[in-house]
């Protein structure tokens, strides 16, 4: 049996630009407000009344010819057997060369200490009246909301400081036979995910039906995130 080769097709005709994928990714992967493992490009062309607006969801392209992988000096950024571009936090030195090499701006560097948001949440909104977020969490005994046990099966459950991070195609969910959470959360089923080596798979079918495009084809990175149709 041939190895799997995961890929994603994004149907721009179906995408309504609701950003549910962006939010879903944040909650699934502990991604903070200012990072965007799942992201989008907004493009406006033309002049009124002939204006064209495009919303293009982006994420790590899990490139076949991934410059982040080629350039990483510790092999922390690597290709898995099923074609995912993954990151080994234990090997990363935080040199950020992968970030410079990636033409898509999908890799983020985390310079915040774990729990720093929690540690800094120590000023009440109304002094002498409301509790701080920190007090509420400590008094109620709820777990500090930075640890994600599901995510932690393949990646640090608490995001480590001083290293890079990026979309993993939810490899922890794939390991359980589930789809990436952005795919599950898309209300219009614009994200089509599966094994590109399987001719019967949904993405292969979609690619057979519609001419695909990729971002910055001329860079030769061979992305595994394809865009079909438009609106």
């Amino acid at each position, binding site marked *: 049996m041939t190895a799997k080769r995961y890929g994603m097709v994004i149907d721009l005709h179906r995408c309504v630009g609701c950003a549910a994928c962006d939010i879903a990714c944040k909650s699934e992967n502990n991604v903070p407000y200012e990072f965007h493992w799942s992201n989008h490009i907004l493009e406006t062309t033309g002049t009124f009344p002939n204006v064209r607006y495009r919303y293009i969801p982006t994420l790590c392209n899990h490139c076949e010819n991934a410059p982040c992988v080629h350039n990483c000096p510790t092999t922390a950024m690597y290709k898995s057997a099923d074609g995912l571009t993954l990151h080994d936090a234990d090997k990363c*030195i935080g040199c950020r060369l992968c970030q410079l090499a990636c033409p898509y701006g999908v890799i983020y560097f985390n310079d915040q200490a774990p729990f720093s948001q929690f540690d800094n949440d120590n000023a009440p909104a109304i002094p002498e009246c409301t509790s701080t977020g920190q007090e509420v969490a400590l008094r109620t005994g709820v777990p500090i909301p930075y640890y994600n046990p599901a995510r932690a099966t393949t990646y640090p459950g608490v995001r480590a400081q001083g290293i890079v991070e990026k979309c993993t195609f939810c490899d922890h969910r794939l390991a359980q036979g589930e789809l990436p959470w952005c795919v599950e959360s898309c209300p219009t089923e614009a994200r089509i995910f599966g094994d590109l080596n399987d001719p019967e798979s949904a993405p292969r079918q979609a690619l057979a039906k519609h001419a695909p*495009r990729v971002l910055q084809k001329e860079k030769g990175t061979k992305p595994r995130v394809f865009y079909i149709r438009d609106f």
Partner: protein
Amino acid sequence: MDPNVFYSIQSGPIWDWRVAVDLFAGGVGVGAFLFAILLSRFGEQRYQRLAQTAAIIAPFLVMLGLAFLFWKVGNKTNVYQMAINLAPSSLMWWGFLIQSALVALGLIHAWQWLDRAPNAARDRLGLLVGALALLVGVYHGLLLAVLTSHPIWASGSMVLMAVLAFTTTGVAGALVAHLLRMTVAGRSDEEGELTGYVDGLRPVRTVLLLALALMLANFFFWWVDLSFGSLESAQALAAAWSAYGPLLLLAGIGLGLVVPLVLIAWFFGNAPVSKPALTLSAIGLASLLVLVGGFAIRYAVVMGGQVSLPISVF
């Protein structure tokens, strides 16, 4: 009408001034190594003290650069991972290996230079150190040139710039250090009288003049290449220029290339023998300016290459 693109990615430069210091100090170190080795092979006896200065400062300059790089990396406790993982497709991995070897052998070489007497073992080691230094100097340019998503960096001019920069700043660094040494510790008998000493430096002047002129020409071709290349490269040049153009032009090219070129050409052409002390001071000043300009160039290139552009869509 051009599309209006909004794409919120991580802001700010990815590599900051510490990387520029690494490339600059490393380049001065590499150039000083090569200068020392060439002087010890081909230089007269009176320049062996200068070779000694260059050989001793060289590994420490490379180490200084690496210290700044170490300061820059986010996860310092993992740096050993470069030594235990094979990453042959990564230039930085090769750079780590070559620079480690250069520092280790360069320190032995510097130690052997504590005694200026002829030393065959030191000469043999010098050949190896010289080869490693050359590789590191080229690596400093290649490291940026392979990053094709940054048009400012991704060209052969980047590599040539690194080679010319280590040539000029290495010689200048060694000269400044040696002039300081002469000022503090005095001249040694083996260096002979000043007139002959200054006059004998003519080959060094020729190398400096040639490298400075080539660097100017390289900047011009780089500019032409980017301006008349792809739309992406022209946009990258315009963006980098608006942020770092004045620094590059005034400090890098003006102060660091043109003024030293004129100073060296003028003083060697007019007063080397009649006013040797003045010529030596002029060489010192020119060398200092080459160093200041050399850092400005590295800084402008490192930072300018990262000025972000709107992402191209389909």
